[in-house]
């Protein structure tokens, strides 16, 4: 009964979304306040209905209702509660429902917090947002309905893929979707602005918090996915340039560019046309990611169900929203007046450079991801792997990272590089010291690695330099510095934190990639092996049982210089349902890096294959991403950016039509 209720709520949500798409847009066109006013309750109602649908499905999972086909295919009665809940979005149908739920949540948030948005803009934004919801509700109902019953119901389900039964992965999809789908707001605002033919700095002030929130979630979502694949897949790698990873990375790159160009638009009323285009492209890349992952056109280590009908449907949705958006852009962009002149060497100029490099890098990732598809159509099968991305993406990141610390130090409108360079003296000095130390300490690894580490250090120190300069540390008494620091807007701290996080991430990536140690060997009980200063003694293998799996656990005593450090217990699990093996790595975390042990297969002559890694500074990668997330949060809490902050919208409403 509850499942039918959920199904019914989903259908109702579709109908509400259709109303929300048509009526307010028409109202905005004929300037009828009553018609436009429908958008707000409709958006809230649509969210409520989708929430009912989602909770109904979740209920079926939690109570293990095996009369529902989707539950049978993806759940099992012995599964722990957390994974019964995460199982809802651990499959194609359920995750699509979550996708639409988050979409409507953003729409509802605009309706709830956007009280002082101009009526027509709000009506148009919510109408565009509803049109996306209509497309995806139809997609769910027609091709991927999670509410279908099965008769007769089987005694138990097939279970969730065991590698998905993991706490980090339980929250990875919701985070990622919040990021993906969050960019829909930027898209809706862009389309609404194009429909109205009106765009000013206040528009950017409205769009930026939403973009920032989406960007934060996408950052954390990608980092969680990377962290999960690091410890769960047993390869000890953090990024594989897999098509599915690229699918989430491209919107991130475009979204990062959007975040920065919206800044120029808000502060200086420039780059309008470009910002609108980026907003359309960012969400289009999100849609393309959804298409790539769910259509099965790509070969990937992780992909969704392969069903051509779904692929064609999502391709149609993608073409409609990308093509429609770009067509509207081509028609109306001419009407948007350009404003705000600036010299090439200025804050705006540096943000333009940021945009050029980020979008170009995004394009190279796009080419690498789609090239195999194009060749596949010609009958040639190839794969584009990490070497391609190392050759194209990485060289484009170097100038970006070099220029990054300069950006915040340059003044708006017109500035000079020398002044910024002087303020970066300390950062450059630190980078030089790091460079010299690396060459002195490490004699192995690629020659370019010390430069990479120095670059990371430069970015980190440069980010801090900005704040130090603003507080005039050393030039004025300490109390004055403190006072100045306190009076800085939160967004300044946010920028510093986020940029610092980027530097940390670069250091982690370079150190792990260049100085990783790896050993593969066969160990018998009693054997010892050394890696990166650690000594591991293998004591043997013991059986163990979990709630829904059996395991073989390898026992390792880890010592360093004779002193015991820890015991590592990597294991191989066999799950009951579905009967599938997984590898659980044993990881010892220290500030130097991770000691990573994987237990392999038993060998004929006794003993086990064992894989050991030492991944130096690998935690910096996720720590860096986390700091970027926190930086975004700090920036979002800035009063000037706060959603619904009073006093801004009135100026917006009074702004003359352009």
């Amino acid at each position, binding site marked *: 009964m509850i499942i039918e209720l959920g199904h019914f709520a989903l259908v109702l949500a579709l109908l509400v979304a259709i109303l929300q798409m048509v009526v307010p847009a028409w109202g905005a066109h004929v300037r009828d306040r009553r018609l436009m006013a429908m958008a707000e309750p409709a958006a809230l109602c649509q969210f409520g209905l989708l929430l009912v649908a989602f909770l109904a499905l979740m209920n079926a999972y939690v109570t293990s209702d095996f009369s529902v086909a989707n539950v049978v*295919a993806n759940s099992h009665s012995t599964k722990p509660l957390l994974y019964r809940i995460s199982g809802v979005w*651990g*499959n*194609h149908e359920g*995750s699509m429902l979550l996708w639409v739920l988050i979409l409507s949540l953003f729409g509802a948030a605009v309706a709830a917090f956007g009280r002082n948005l101009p009526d027509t803009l709000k009506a148009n934004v919510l109408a565009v947002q509803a049109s996306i919801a209509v497309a995806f509700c139809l997609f769910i109902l027609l091709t991927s309905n999670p509410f279908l019953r099965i008769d007769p119901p089987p005694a138990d389900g097939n279970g*969730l*893929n065991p*590698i*998905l039964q993991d706490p980090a992965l339980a929250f990875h999809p919701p985070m*990622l979707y919040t990021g993906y789908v969050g960019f829909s707001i930027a898209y809706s605002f862009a389309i609404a602005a194009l429909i109205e033919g009106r765009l000013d700095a206040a528009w950017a002030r409205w769009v930026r918090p939403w973009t920032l929130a989406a960007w934060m979630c996408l950052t954390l979502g990608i980092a969680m*996915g990377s962290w999960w694949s690091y410890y769960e897949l*047993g390869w000890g790698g953090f990024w594989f340039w897999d098509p*599915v990873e690229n699918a989430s990375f491209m919107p991130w790159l475009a979204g990062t560019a959007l975040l920065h160009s919206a800044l120029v638009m808000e502060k200086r009323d420039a780059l309008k046309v470009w910002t609108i285009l980026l907003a359309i492209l960012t969400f289009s890349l999100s849609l393309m990611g959804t298409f790539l*992952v769910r259509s*099965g056109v790509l*070969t990937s*280590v*992780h*992909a*969704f*169900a*392969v*069903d051509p009908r779904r692929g064609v449907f999502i391709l149609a949705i993608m073409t409609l929203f990308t093509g429609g958006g770009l067509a509207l852009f081509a028609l109306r962009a001419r009407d948007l007046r350009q404003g705000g*002149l600036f*010299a*090439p060497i200025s804050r705006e100029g540096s943000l*333009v*450079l940021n945009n*050029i490099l980020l979008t*170009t*890098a995004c394009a*190279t990732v796009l*080419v*690498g991801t789609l*090239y195999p598809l194009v060749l596949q159509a010609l009958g*040639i*099968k*190839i*794969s*584009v*792997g990490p*070497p*391609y991305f190392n*050759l*194209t993406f990485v*060289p484009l990141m170097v100038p970006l990272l070099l220029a990054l610390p300069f950006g915040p130090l340059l003044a708006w409108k017109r500035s000079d590089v020398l002044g910024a360079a002087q303020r970066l003296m300390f950062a450059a000095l630190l980078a030089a010291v790091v460079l010299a130390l690396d060459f002195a300490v490490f004699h192995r690894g690629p020659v370019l690695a010390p430069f990479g580490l120095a670059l990371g250090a430069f970015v980190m120190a440069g980010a801090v330099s900005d704040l130090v300069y603003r507080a005039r540390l050393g030039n004025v008494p300490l109390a004055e510095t403190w006072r100045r620091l306190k009076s800085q807007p939160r967004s300044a701290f946010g920028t510093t934190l986020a940029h610092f996080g980027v530097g940390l991430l670069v250091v982690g990536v370079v150190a792990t990639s260049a100085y990783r140690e790896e050993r*593969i*060997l*066969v160990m018998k009980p009693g054997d010892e092996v050394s890696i990166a200063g650690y000594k591991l003694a293998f004591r043997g293998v013991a059986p163990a049982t979990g709630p829904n799996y059996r395991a073989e656990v390898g026992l390792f005593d880890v010592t360093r210089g004779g002193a015991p450090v820890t015991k590592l217990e990597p294991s*191989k699990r066999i799950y009951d349902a*579905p009967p*599938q*093996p997984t*590898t659980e790595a044993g990881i010892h975390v220290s500030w130097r890096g991770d000691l990573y042990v994987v237990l*392999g*297969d038993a*060998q004929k002559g006794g003993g086990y*294959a*064992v*894989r050991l890694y030492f991944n130096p500074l690998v935690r910096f990668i996720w720590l860096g991403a986390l700091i970027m997330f926190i930086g975004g949060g700090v920036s979002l809490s800035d009063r000037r950016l706060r959603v619904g902050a009073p006093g801004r919208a009135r100026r917006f409403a009074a702004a003359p039509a352009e």
Partner: protein
Amino acid sequence: MTRKQRRGVLIGVSVGVLMVAVGLVLYALRDSIVFFHTPSDIAEKHIPSGERFRLGGLVEKGSVKRGEGAKVSFVVTDTLKDIPVTYEGVLPDLFREGQGVVAEGKLTPSGVFVADTVLAKHDATYMPPEVAKALQAKGVKLGKGATHPGSMTQ
């Protein structure tokens, strides 16, 4: 600086970055892509030894031999032609006899494929689509598992 000059600088930088990117992409696409072949393709196309490619097919039943240390050898087949493969390392969890596999590496002059990467899908019933397609194209009948919709791991 006039407006025109400023625009010139902007366009110049954009075009410059784009040119560099196009150059990098073309260079990388020439040198760092990997082709995918089945054992039959190798026999037909005379792949030179030393060229890096991906080999896809089924792990022949009874062919997996564990050597000294972590060395493993097995035979990849598309039921028409076979290629012996050697690999040093820990095989993925889902590596099984009779299942689909993709190995990346090089062919030696003696016709043995030395793999440095072995991929198996994270789903017991799944076969990499390129393997499934290649095998179907060769007229190999596949079990139900090959086209079974797997679950996500995105």
